[in-house]
């Protein structure tokens, strides 16, 4: 779809990814023609409503497909062809080169183990000696802004607040110096104030370690503030790819526009919030042609004819037949 010169190896390159899952009623499509690229040290946002396939796309980068799913296309994470890779290669990839930060830190850590055990487990499994692993973990805890990092190693997850625990999870994710970090709504379960701090920590560490970051979120403002580029997903497809600078001011796809109109803002004029009519579709129940057609104010007959190809539009790439009709 997009042609770009890639001089260095990308942290993540998803090309034309399609995903179907076999059910009793037949094959159910989940993703179609998803193309996402995350360069090294780059922060890329993946936004969309619940069920649009954001998390699914991120997990595919780890080779974690749902049971009974079949994938087409090509997924290269940290240089490994994930869809073709064997079990040991995938395990190695997950241990050392790709990490993930989850939505709810409290749910994503074994409540019985000490924080130190959690942080060093990955390193120890990769063959780092105990002392060295502990030293690294303390160092990382310090970097994510935990007071008394040595003492924190001996404490249990329930002794930390959500924000602190998410920092610890970030430290754990970066312990093996991965090339790619997948952050699946890492701040959704946190307070807004903690959210800013955690995102700050995430960004700072990602920059200093040169890690590519795929930031999955449904918070458009956050994505615009954090990311270099943003992909907008709808019903299992990428509908727009934009620079974060142009994303908020000049959305090209009617869906992006509608999303922005639907999100409240404390700044600027307090216009009424406009909910998007209808409900989010999954790829399986999306209409023919453009998936957004049945909820789009701009839709016309020709929108039903085929899935719109992605084409450049201003600074964005958009999969829409009449993006120019979208008011800037």
């Amino acid at each position, binding site marked *: 779809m997009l042609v770009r010169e890639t001089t260095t190896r990308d942290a993540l390159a998803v090309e034309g990814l399609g995903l179907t899952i076999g059910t009793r009623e037949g094959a159910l499509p989940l993703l179609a023609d998803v193309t996402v690229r995350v360069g090294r040290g780059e922060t890329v946002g993946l936004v969309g409503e619940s069920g649009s396939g954001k998390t699914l796309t991120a997990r595919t980068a*780890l080779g*974690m497909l749902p049971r009974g799913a079949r994938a087409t296309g090509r997924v290269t994470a940290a240089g490994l062809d994930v869809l073709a890779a064997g079990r040991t290669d*995938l*395990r*190695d*990839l*997950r*241990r*050392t080169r790709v*990490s*993930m930060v*989850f939505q*709810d830190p409290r*749910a*994503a*850590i*074994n*409540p*019985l*183990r000490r924080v130190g055990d959690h942080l060093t*487990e*990955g390193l120890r*499994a990769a063959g780092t000696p105990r002392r060295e692993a502990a030293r690294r973990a303390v160092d990382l805890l310090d970097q994510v802004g935990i007071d*008394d990092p040595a*003492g924190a190693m001996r404490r249990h997850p*329930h*002794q930390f607040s959500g924000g602190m625990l998410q920092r610890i999870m970030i430290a754990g994710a970066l312990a093996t110096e991965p090339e790619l970090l997948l952050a699946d709504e890492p701040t959704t379960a946190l307070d807004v104030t903690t959210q800013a701090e955690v995102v700050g920590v995430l960004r700072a560490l990602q920059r200093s370690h040169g890690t590519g970051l795929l930031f999955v979120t449904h918070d458009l403002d956050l994505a615009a503030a954090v990311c270099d580029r943003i992909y907008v997903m709808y019903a299992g497809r990428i509908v727009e790819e934009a620079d974060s600078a142009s994303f908020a001011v000049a959305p090209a796809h009617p869906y992006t526009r509608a999303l922005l109109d639907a999100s409240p803002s404390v700044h600027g004029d307090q216009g009424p919030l406009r909910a998007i009519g209808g409900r989010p579709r999954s790829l399986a129940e999306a209409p023919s042609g453009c998936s957004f057609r049945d909820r789009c104010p701009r839709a016309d007959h020709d929108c039903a004819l085929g899935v719109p190809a992605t084409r450049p539009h201003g600074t964005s790439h958009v999969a829409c037949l009449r993006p120019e009709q979208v008011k800037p």
Partner: protein
Amino acid sequence: MTLTVPALRARAARRRRHRPLSVRLAAAFLLVVAGTGLLAPLLAPHSPDTTSLVNALAPPGTPGHWLGTDSTGRDVLTRVMYGARLSLLAPLGVVLLSAALGITTGLVAARAGGRVDAVLSRCMDIVFAFPSLLLAMIAVAVFGPGLAAPVCALAVSYAPFLGRIVRSVALQEGARPYMEAYRVMGFGELWVTLRHLLPNVAPVLIAQGTLSFGYALVDLASLSYLGLGVRPPDADWGSMISQAQSAILQGAPWSGIVPGLAVLLTVVSVNVIGEHVGGSISGRGKEET
């Protein structure tokens, strides 16, 4: 929060206060029984097997035989102390063996799912439907007398109790996001199961294990009573009760009552502790945070 030493002491004291008197009494009693069993050769006033027909059926309170003697003149106190060894060790063996079996079956069933789960669960149902004493008696009939056969048989018949609990807790716990998180970190199924799932299942296991201990003690005593467990002249509470039958008819019930009380109090103590452990698990975390 870094805990200072006084704070730690205060917390420990708070925990102690949470333990009701019954639990403390039960624990003390079990400790005494285990201790006397362990140190029987040092503490016991007589040899457990020395018969003395002159002193047969001496009533409790007789100098030198404070709990009396049985129909062959053996000291009841001595035999109860020696009997504690087998009477406690054998149920412990049952619990450990059945735990090993139950944990394996339950974990495999929960983690493999699908057909494996169905087959293992049905197997557990079948063993469940089998009376444990009957199974133990069949084992003795096949493999001959002695403790090994009934201990193994009881372990097999108790395994489904633990297996079912392990399976259901493992299913519940296995669906929690952290299991997935460790898989994302590149850890294999076996590692995640043993290192992260099992410790989260353990508290329930401990509670159920304590309860099984009580059942096993009673079942093994019943077998000994039937003459299928411990071979004479080894002392064991069940066989002591069995041998006391004729004495009871002769109006000397103490040689049966004392081991009977030992069985009763031990089982009650174990169950009180088991209840307490189970109860404090269901309230887990409330006091910690």
